[in-house]
């Protein structure tokens, strides 16, 4: 391997971005761009555009798939109806128009449903499955809960040490969680569900929780009546705040919006108490007690009681 003295050719950098260089060439580029900021910057930018193009081309590919599948389903549906009409005629029966129209619709629907079912099973993009499920499962295996607040639908994990401790660097489950969560950040789509999943992905994979706030905020704005989105936005704000009071106030406001929609949301009640505690507000104790009124027995409740013990004034 030789150290490149001059900047590499643009096409060589392009091949590096696309991952098509052979090993000695790749190693030479790595050595060069490890210390050459200009080349590193253009490589990073080109990689970003390449990823965007890959997403667009994937969307286009899926679109074509969808259009073809719709055409197939339609043709099969019509074929089903024609066959039905032929059989009725062959039997020498009188064709009743209304009955036939009803049968046409029934047959077409039945064929369509089975066709779409087949399609959904083969295209994960159109699966009804929640993209958060693998992340929720991975979250359940970490040694130490990465966030103080609750994420809706995520399992309880005990929080023993603060973020940045050695645990985070040595727990393989935490690394797996980051890997799974990072897959969510590649989700495309501007619907509330996609935005929310992307935000959760960033919250759990990116070391800077602030990066998750834009998609989570957008999801909450898309579906302002969804308590879960408001509560998860609050969780991200609490994680990003690090003592920043305006951010904690925003988290509190998001919890209040969630509770306005669903007054018994355990996630929002817990996160509200966490935000108040972070703000050093005396009503944090009452907030944990409000939480216990809704959830008196889960592991979250045990944690709420611990907080109450800590917050209770000494006699």
């Amino acid at each position, binding site marked *: 391997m030789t150290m490149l003295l001059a900047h590499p050719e643009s*096409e060589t950098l*392009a091949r590096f971005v696309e991952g098509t260089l052979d090993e000695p060439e790749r190693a030479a580029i790595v050595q060069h761009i490890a210390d050459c900021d200009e080349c*590193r910057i253009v490589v990073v930018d080109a990689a970003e*555009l*390449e*990823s965007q193009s890959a997403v667009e081309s994937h969307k286009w590919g899926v679109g074509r798939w969808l259009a073809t599948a719709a055409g197939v389903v339609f043709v099969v549906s019509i074929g089903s109806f024609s066959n039905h009409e032929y059989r009725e005629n062959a039997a020498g029966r009188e064709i009743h128009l209304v009955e036939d129209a009803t049968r046409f619709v029934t047959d077409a629907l039945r064929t369509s449903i089975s066709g779409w079912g087949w399609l959904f099973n083969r295209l994960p993009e159109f699966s009804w499955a929640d993209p958060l499920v693998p992340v929720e499962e991975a979250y359940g295996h970490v040694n130490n809960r990465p966030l103080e607040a609750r994420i809706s639908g995520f399992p309880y994990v005990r929080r023993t040490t603060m973020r940045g401790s050695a645990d985070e*660097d040595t727990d393989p489950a935490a690394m797996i969680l980051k*890997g799974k969560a990072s897959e969510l950040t590649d989700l495309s789509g501007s619907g509330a569900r996609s935005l929310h999943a992307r935000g959760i992905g960033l919250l759990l994979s990116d070391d800077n929780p602030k990066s998750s706030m834009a998609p989570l905020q957008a999801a909450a704005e898309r579906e302002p009546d969804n308590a879960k989105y408001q509560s998860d936005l609050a969780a991200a704000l609490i994680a990003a705040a690090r003592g920043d009071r305006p951010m904690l106030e925003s988290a509190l406001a998001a919890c209040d919006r969630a509770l306005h929609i669903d007054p018994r949301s355990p996630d929002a009640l817990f996160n509200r108490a966490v935000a108040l505690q972070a703000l050093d507000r005396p009503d944090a104790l009452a907030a944990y007690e409000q939480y216990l009124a809704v959830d008196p027995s889960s592991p979250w409740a045990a944690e709420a009681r611990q907080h109450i013990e800590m917050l209770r004034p000494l006699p």
Partner: protein
Amino acid sequence: MNWETFFLDNLSLIERAVAFVCRKYGLWGADAEDFASASKLKIIEDNYAVLRKFEEKSSLATYLTIVIDRHYLDQKIHEWGKWRPSMRARQAGDAAIFLERLISRDGLGIAEASTIVRQKFTELDARALERLAGSIVVRQPRRQASVERTEEMREPASEASAEEELLRGEREVAARRAGAVLSRELDRLAPEDRLIMKLKFIDAMKVSTMARMLHADQKQLYRRIERLVAMLRKALLAAGVAMSDIGDMLTHGADTMDIDFAVPDAAAGKGPP
């Protein structure tokens, strides 16, 4: 091959790459149009040398993006001198890069630098400039100002209280110290590890993209990053850097520190088109 036809056939690709670079560096309106014209000229000059050099070993789109991006950086180096803008400044656009250069490289105060930026970017109002200054990372200057100071550019009285100034000073000292240790530790890493850390913490590159470029398994790369972070954290703690400063560096990116990532002389040869 008729290179003019090839150019015209791929004009939309060229324009897409130009638009991407403009978006990346916050070029709009007349600035974006000027840059688009200059980029096309760059491709056409010397009988389409840029296109003639293309050997079809990569996709044309990636190749053109690199050529055009490099053209932008060359323009800025020519215009402003050698300067590596931080990722945040790059994201905030030309005015932010200019402001950061004046503060961090030339050593001007925020108010003084803002005055100069406003003279160049007349569309910016005071509030927009304040936001810009807040968004960029202010690093310590490495050398003294070379800009001639005029009467209008004189530093106005600071509105910050003495206490705020003191705190800011303390933070800067801590950041400089932590940055120097981090810089030293990064230099000790193998080139690939150093690159991985820069891609992750300076450029905020996705690990999936990094894995493809480095021919690495994504999960293993995660582990490697975690291991490198743990190693750096240990070295920083051993050097007496406070945990809070390490948190800033490793969670907000090394951009927040005064790290000398200057281009070594050996690598600063003349670049390709």
